[in-house]
């Protein structure tokens, strides 16, 4: 298949390995990857802050660039939710409403694409470590994704998955919330880190880099033996 990989800004700039891993995996499965150079952002920061006009400026570009794509795989649960769910609200009652609906039907979060669309759970990956999984809220609640990541991790050789308490409770990132209400954001992150530590895992895995950025930021500053890694990075390890 021809798959368009949408790499949002923070993955591009700070976590390129996540995008690279996704591209490698999909190509390895025999699909042709196309990565629009002109796209950098889904527009969510402006949308979340209530500046929908400014968000629309960015989102319209996304609609145009992706209108000919057959499948769009998004390298982040929160940006995936933006394209698949929130674009409908953003463009409701505008001339782009139909285009937003069409794009929504073509969008997939990465783990969901592999398992639900391609029917693949075993990528031949090898990652001997004890890990625990954090469910990014957008992926979990807006996109309804919980099982795919666990099915994929279940097939990784040498990997032991331990579920943490409250795996589905928010890590506290929440986009601009993290900067506007840092004390609450930090408290939520601390609770998440504590849950992860309790499992004795070596890695916190997630399907959302924004969550990992927040948790890793806390761990680096406050000291913690546990490391963070994105699901795609594990799956690319052979």
């Amino acid at each position, binding site marked *: 298949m021809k798959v368009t990989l949408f790499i949002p800004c923070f993955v591009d700039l700070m976590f*390129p390995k996540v995008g690279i891993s996704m591209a490698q995996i999909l190509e390895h499965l025999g699909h042709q990857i196309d990565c629009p150079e002109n796209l*950098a952002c889904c527009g969510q920061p402006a949308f979340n802050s209530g500046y929908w006009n400014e968000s629309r400026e*960015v989102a319209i570009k996304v609609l145009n660039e992706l209108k000919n794509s057959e499948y769009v795989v998004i390298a982040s649960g929160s940006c995936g939710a933006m394209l698949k769910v929130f674009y409908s609200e953003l463009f409701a009652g505008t001339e782009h409403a139909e285009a937003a609906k069409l794009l929504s039907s073509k969008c997939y979060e990465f783990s969901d694409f592999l398992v639900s669309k391609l029917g693949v759970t075993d990528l031949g990956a090898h990652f001997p470590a004890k890990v625990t999984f954090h469910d990014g809220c957008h992926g979990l609640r807006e996109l309804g994704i919980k099982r795919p990541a666990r099915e994929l991790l279940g097939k990784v050789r040498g990997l032991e998955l331990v579920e943490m308490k409250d795996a589905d409770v928010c890590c506290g990132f929440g986009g601009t919330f993290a900067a506007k209400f840092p004390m609450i954001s930090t408290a939520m992150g601390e609770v998440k880190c504590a849950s992860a530590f309790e499992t004795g895992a070596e890695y916190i895995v997630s399907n959302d880099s924004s969550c990992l950025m927040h948790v890793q*930021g806390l761990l680096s*500053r406050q000291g913690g033996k546990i490391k963070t890694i994105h699901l795609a990075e594990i799956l690319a390890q052979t």
Partner: protein
Amino acid sequence: MKAFAEEFKQQARRLTEDLRHRAIIQTALHKYEVVRDKSKAAFQDWQAARQAASETKWDAINHLDTYLLEFVEKIEARGTKVHWASTGQQAREIIFGIIREKKARSIIKSKAMTSEEIHLNDALEEAGFDVVESDLGEFIVQLKREAPYHIVFPAMHLTRGEIGELFARELGSVPSDNPEDLTMIARRVLRQKYITADIGLTGANFAVAETGMISITENEGNARLTAALPKTLISLLGIEKVLPSLEDLALFLPMLATAGTGQPLTCYNSLYGGPRQPGETDGPEEYHVVLLDNRRTELLADAEQRDALHCIRCGACLNVCPIFRNVGGHTYGTTYSGPIGSVITPHLRGLQDWKHLSYASSLCGACTEACPVKINLHHHLLQNRRNASTQKPSAHEKLAFKLFAFVMNRPAVYEFAKRAGRLAQKFHPLVRGTRLDPAYGWTKTRDLPPVAKQTFKEFWKTRKPG
């Protein structure tokens, strides 16, 4: 007004650092989760029940005038006096009017968040009336001169030791930290109050239109006693409490209990259709129902957010909210806290003054998932943000996002910004974590990841043929 937002941030800072308080709340809410999951599992189809409840409330709210009039007609036919109050002030005046007419001195109340909303207790106490809260949690916070911490669990932030000390200090009771002893102390004190009170005042969970009845859900029996013993009874309720049919309660009573406290059904679910009827030997001689608007009709007029009026005040959204768990109920500084409070307070008390509650959310969506009537809570928070920014944009934020759109839409500019970012981060360690740091909000407690040596776009370019 910036004051409310600043106060919120200050309280949030204080409470999030209070690890003891955080632990108390987490423990209490985990206990709730365990029983709630058990009760939910007993339903044959919880999701279908939610859908039915949501549709029923849609019917009720979107035909509010019809059902309200039917409710009033039916309950008036049994001898109840119905009063309509557009504002909190009017509601207080009506209630004062009844009290003065009855030459009453003492009032006993069962739990009514609506009475908190109109600051009734303060007004009554100032006017010299003796008013006592009979719900144990409300009784405790009334003694402590605090607002209820949670709409369902008013005293969940207090330990048994603190309550024991409070009782010893205010009631002169023998100091104890045994929950049973403490409950019995309250029971003894309140028993006399029920018997001697001139006026009983309750809230309502539902107002059944079809049969003209108020429905009250409780565990302790204090509402039943409040509605049984005093000669005059007043029920205060928001106009949105309407339910179309009597048998709607077959769905709503278990759902309210399951979502609210994790019980299959609470101990007492009672229906009141009027004062003492011919042939009945007890109950109030006079029954007054006060219907309160207090800007609910404004929320009704916002068709996008109208479903916030479907709320049955179960508190489930508070219980699952990670913000609530970490800052607690008092931090919100207003009657209705948690996600539902953040959604409706801008409508009831002013958008610009209370928009900060809508921003103080990571939009995780746990609230929407938990809501038994499927209110789209976290999407409403986004809409509040949009409405606030549209009504009164912050000049520098608007500029920032215009710049953001400019950068993101132009690859060359994005490229430039990236290079600038790489350069800037060389100097960042000099200011990191200090007030000069532009990313201080983040870097005070967290490290910021660096721009990668090779970004994804750069990597992808190297792969292109030619």
